[in-house]
């Protein structure tokens, strides 16, 4: 039983490394994501000028930015497989669970890399600062893993549909809403101060939703993947 689990994890890591290598050859998804985020950030910052925003606006803008950046490129992992017609080969060499885990890991790493670059830039350009750093980091990480999870499973669904791009955002948005609501509120609280008790509600909601959606996605992926 343990060895089976180990093989599963090993396979996921292999698929993850394969995707990372492919990504480094063309750097398509990374570039698209970072450029999109920087463009949006520039537009926001430019149009706002030197105005100081209140925490509500700052946290909303941050998560809008992150959400749309994920919408622009997190579907790449599955769509590329379909377009380059390597998906059938992938089906042959591995069971569905390692594929899901590997792709999920890739998306998580991708969104975290984006955040390392964008989030400091965001706060610098918008002239805002975070008072409760620990809450902020927890909310940020949980929220991004949530967005990555939702993106992975929806990307798998749309990779088999016809009108890929628009459908991705349409399908992903309702499911991302609980994540966005909790994250925006949590971030707002962390910007205002180090208020652990209030933000605990949101962090709990985020964490439980994340666990639930990850489990359901894992279980359901098999049905998406098998033709």
């Amino acid at each position, binding site marked *: 039983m343990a060895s089976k689990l180990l093989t599963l994890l090993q396979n996921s890591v292999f698929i993850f490394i394969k995707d990372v290598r492919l990504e480094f050859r063309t750097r398509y998804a990374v570039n698209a994501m970072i450029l999109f985020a920087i463009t949006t950030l520039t537009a926001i910052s430019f149009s706002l000028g030197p105005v100081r925003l209140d925490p509500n606006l700052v946290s909303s803008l941050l998560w809008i930015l992150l959400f749309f950046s994920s919408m622009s490129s997190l579907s790449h992992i599955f769509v590329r497989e379909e377009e380059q017609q390597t998906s059938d080969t992938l089906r042959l060499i591995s069971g569905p669970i390692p594929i899901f885990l590997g792709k999920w890991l890739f998306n998580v790493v991708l969104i975290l890399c984006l955040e390392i670059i964008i989030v400091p830039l965001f706060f610098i350009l918008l002239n805002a600062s975070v008072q409760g750093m620990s809450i902020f980091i927890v909310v940020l990480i949980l929220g991004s893993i949530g967005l990555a999870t939702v993106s992975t499973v929806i990307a798998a669904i*749309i990779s*088999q549909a*016809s009108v890929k791009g628009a459908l991705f955002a349409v*399908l992903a948005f*309702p499911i991302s809403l*609980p994540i966005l609501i909790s994250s925006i509120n949590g971030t707002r609280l962390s910007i205002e101060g180090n208020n652990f008790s209030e933000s605990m509600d949101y962090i709990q909601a985020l964490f*439980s939703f994340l666990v639930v959606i990850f489990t359901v996605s894992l279980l359901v992926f098999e049905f998406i993947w098998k033709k």
Partner: protein
Amino acid sequence: MLVIVGAFLFTPTAEGLGESTRILYFHVPCAWVAALAFLVSAMYSIIYLKKQNAIYDMWASSSAEIGMVFTVLATITGSIWAKAIWHSYWNWDPRETSIFILLLIYAAYFALRSAVDDNEQKARLSAVYSIIAFVTVPFLIFVVPRILESLHPDPLINTEGKINMNSKMLVVFLGSLTGFTFLYYWILKLKIGSYQLAGVIQKKLGKD
């Protein structure tokens, strides 16, 4: 059946605190049926994935169609009531948000169905989406209103889960709820019947 439904919905004119509260008898059952339709759709989606029989997909999508209609009704009745009581059509109150998200989920479900051509794939992918989307519903309905403050009145969302309504109102309300549920079930059966008839006719036409 429809007579019973009609009778229940017309008796409320005798009761209610303040004229506008009577819309409660329409609005809440609409929202309840919308959520119920979605639950039924998700259940049939699970059964479809297990048994791979196309008839379950028919149940799932019919239930979703009806659910969409009721969600729109719930949103509109809620909005009208909001204008009457709180003097604004839309406030992003947690419950309002949840019903709006339900609307989005239904719209996304039908967008997905229209984007996939192959029937078996369509059924499979929309079943999966139905299940995933259904996971978010308990969160939106129960978790969010507990955390954030809500404009919706207390009998509906108090933390003990009790119903503190005037007993007369309660009777009529429950009757309306039951009536709406029967209405939903009746329409669902009609839909399934008509789809099956269409299938039979198609087969006969195909043979000729």
